[in-house]
């Protein structure tokens, strides 16, 4: 998977961030290169989801220090929609429902915004239908979901599949999947993981945020990071995830001197 010619896609240095006045990230450092799959693990409240929101540009999260380079550019200077057009994708833990907005129209507008950025031709309604058809198979989604309102009345598993469908349409450079496995039964997990596996290649990268080994049995990470109190405490290979599964997080947290929140 890893090759030396790979591109440095994401470079996070000493990132601090807060939400509603509360410090959540306390100096995150992380590098991701093309062709790599990273897993980010940690307890609830350790800052994993916050990191994903900060990278995607959620307005409620304020960066107080540090920098993030995305393909050499200052990521934090871009609006959320610009980040998406540049190929950064966040698969949401809880995708929101948007009543009255048809899923296919939403997917088309979204896809076209990315295509426009890439200098590709925007797709009209008819050619988009063909394009989306080819991607539906990837997540084994019924075309009837396209006619419904965005995520409205979708089950947990359907929402997650809709997220991976969006990933398939947008062809991102960096995909951050925030607890995509949560709330999925084993069959749905396989479908979602299968979709992700088909979408990863030497030119893109994936950051999986998860609590569980079971997702990492389906999608093999090159690196596993353990986050605690807003910082990455330890980085290892896939064996680290298995150790965590056996022994929990405590041994890592105890092993390193606690610095507390600064």
């Amino acid at each position, binding site marked *: 998977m890893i090759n030396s010619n790979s591109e440095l896609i994401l470079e996070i240095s000493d990132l601090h961030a807060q939400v509603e006045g509360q410090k959540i990230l306390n100096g995150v450092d992380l590098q991701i290169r093309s062709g790599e799959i990273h897993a980010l693990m940690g307890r609830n409240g350790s800052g994993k989801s916050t990191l994903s929101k900060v990278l995607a*540009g959620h307005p409620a999260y304020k960066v107080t220090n540090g920098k993030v380079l995305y393909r050499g550019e200052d990521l934090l200077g871009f609006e959320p929609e610009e980040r998406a057009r540049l190929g950064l994708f*966040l698969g949401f833990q809880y*995708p929101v429902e948007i009543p*009255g*907005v048809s899923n296919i129209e939403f997917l088309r507008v979204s896809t076209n915004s990315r295509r426009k950025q890439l200098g590709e031709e925007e797709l009209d309604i008819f050619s988009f239908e063909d394009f989306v058809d080819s991607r539906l198979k990837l997540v084994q989604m019924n075309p009837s979901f396209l006619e419904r309102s965005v995520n409205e009345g979708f089950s947990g598993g359907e929402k997650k599949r809709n997220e991976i469908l969006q990933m398939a349409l947008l062809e991102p450079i960096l995909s951050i999947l925030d607890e995509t496995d949560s709330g999925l039964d084993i069959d749905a997990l396989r479908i979602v993981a299968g979709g992700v596996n088909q979408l990863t290649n030497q030119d893109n990268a994936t950051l999986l945020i998860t609590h569980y080994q079971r997702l990492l049995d389906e999608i093999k990470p090159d690196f596993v990071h353990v986050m605690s109190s807003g910082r990455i405490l330890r980085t290892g290979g896939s064996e680290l995830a298995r150790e965590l599964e056996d022994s929990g997080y405590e041994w890592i947290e105890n092993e390193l001197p606690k610095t507390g929140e600064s």
Partner: protein
Amino acid sequence: MKSQNLVGEIVSKPYKYGFVTDIETEKISKGLTEEVVRQISAKKKEPQFLLDFRLKAYKHWLTMTEPNWAELGYKKLNYQDIIYYAAPRDNEKKASLDEVDPKLLETFDKLGIPLTEQKRLSNVAVDAVFDSVSIATTYKEKLAEHGVVFCSITEAVAEYPELIEQYLGSVVPLNDNFFATLNSAVFSDGSFVFIPKGIDCPMELSSYFRINSGDIGQFERTLIIAEESSSVSYLEGCTAPMFDTNTLHAAVVEIVVLDDASVKYSTVQNWYSGDENGVGGIYNFVTKRGHCRGVRSKISWSQVETGSAITWKYPSCILQGEDSVGEFYSVALTNHLQKADTGTKMIHVGPRTKSTIVSKGISAGKSLNSYRGLVQIGPKAIGSKNYSQCDSMLIGDNAAANTFPYIRSQNPSSCIEHEASTCRISEDKLFYLQSRGIGFEEAVSMIVSGFCRDVFNQLPMEFAAEADKLLALKLEGSVG
């Protein structure tokens, strides 16, 4: 980085219909007297019965007091400071469009309502009303082949006086309410539609109202009659220039529907709403009512209300015929200091009558947006049904939304359902769309138009896209 404050800036796009057409106008002098009423009637060469109608209304109006129950808090109008009739100097209705003053045609072109033959909307006939008079009606001959009459009410008075005498004031009586009575005394022009028995009107009919003069009131009168087993879809659009004074618009619309006939009445109202400090704008105090006289008759009101400083209107249905059906679909968007108090009255008189109410209110800025509606089921309306759904969306922290549903049921066999909800345009929904590459403003208008989808689906095709665009335009820079 963009903050939520930006959501507050999206509703303040400059009003693009605010221009004034420089045309010589004939106005009668300010103020309202019996003489003024007689003058209006004389200018229109009206028959005696209509003059009598006007004078009776005028005399009754003198005994009435201006209502205040909606507590809209506007400055009292001085009715002696309004001009009750204004018309382009050369206001003889022309036989052909080629003879109409090019400035007037240009005005309607600029408003996106091309009247000239070659550019006409292919399946919509238009009656264009400029200040107090109708200047052109398109496709009249083609409609006449089907026996459909579509003309200005002034022409109808001259050509079909018996229909006017029979139906005018039969749905909204001349003593109905302060503004309707005022209209009955001084109404200037408006549209007249007659669909004969058994005819489905072959095209959409549309009236376009334009207020051009600053100090006039516009009092148009519309009368629609659908005979047995006929049907028609009628659209109404409105704009006005920007003035820093308030202009009164007090229209009356009456609809009569006989056995098995149906009328669909759609409005896109975009009168000038005043500036962001609430200076200027139209007072839109309108009485609209339809009467389902026949069995299985149907009236459907759809409205998209985005303009006016104050909108005060309740398009209503009197469901008299057995199994008659009334519908009301409304989107009201207010911004800055706009106030809208709108809703409907569904009066169930006959057995097994049905009504549906779907109201979507969106308030931004410091505006106030209220739904006020009455569902009344009479003692003989056995087995009747009503379903109401009233949803409000708030944009920013300074806007207000109210819902005032009044329900009266006088028989136990009827069924009334009412649902209401209020929501805010959420940061999370916006972020979700943005994180898919959709720009901030587009995301806002996508969410808002999704919120209005149930109502937009009721609009005729030509209007649905227009309404979507209008909403997006009004919302630009308003969200916060």
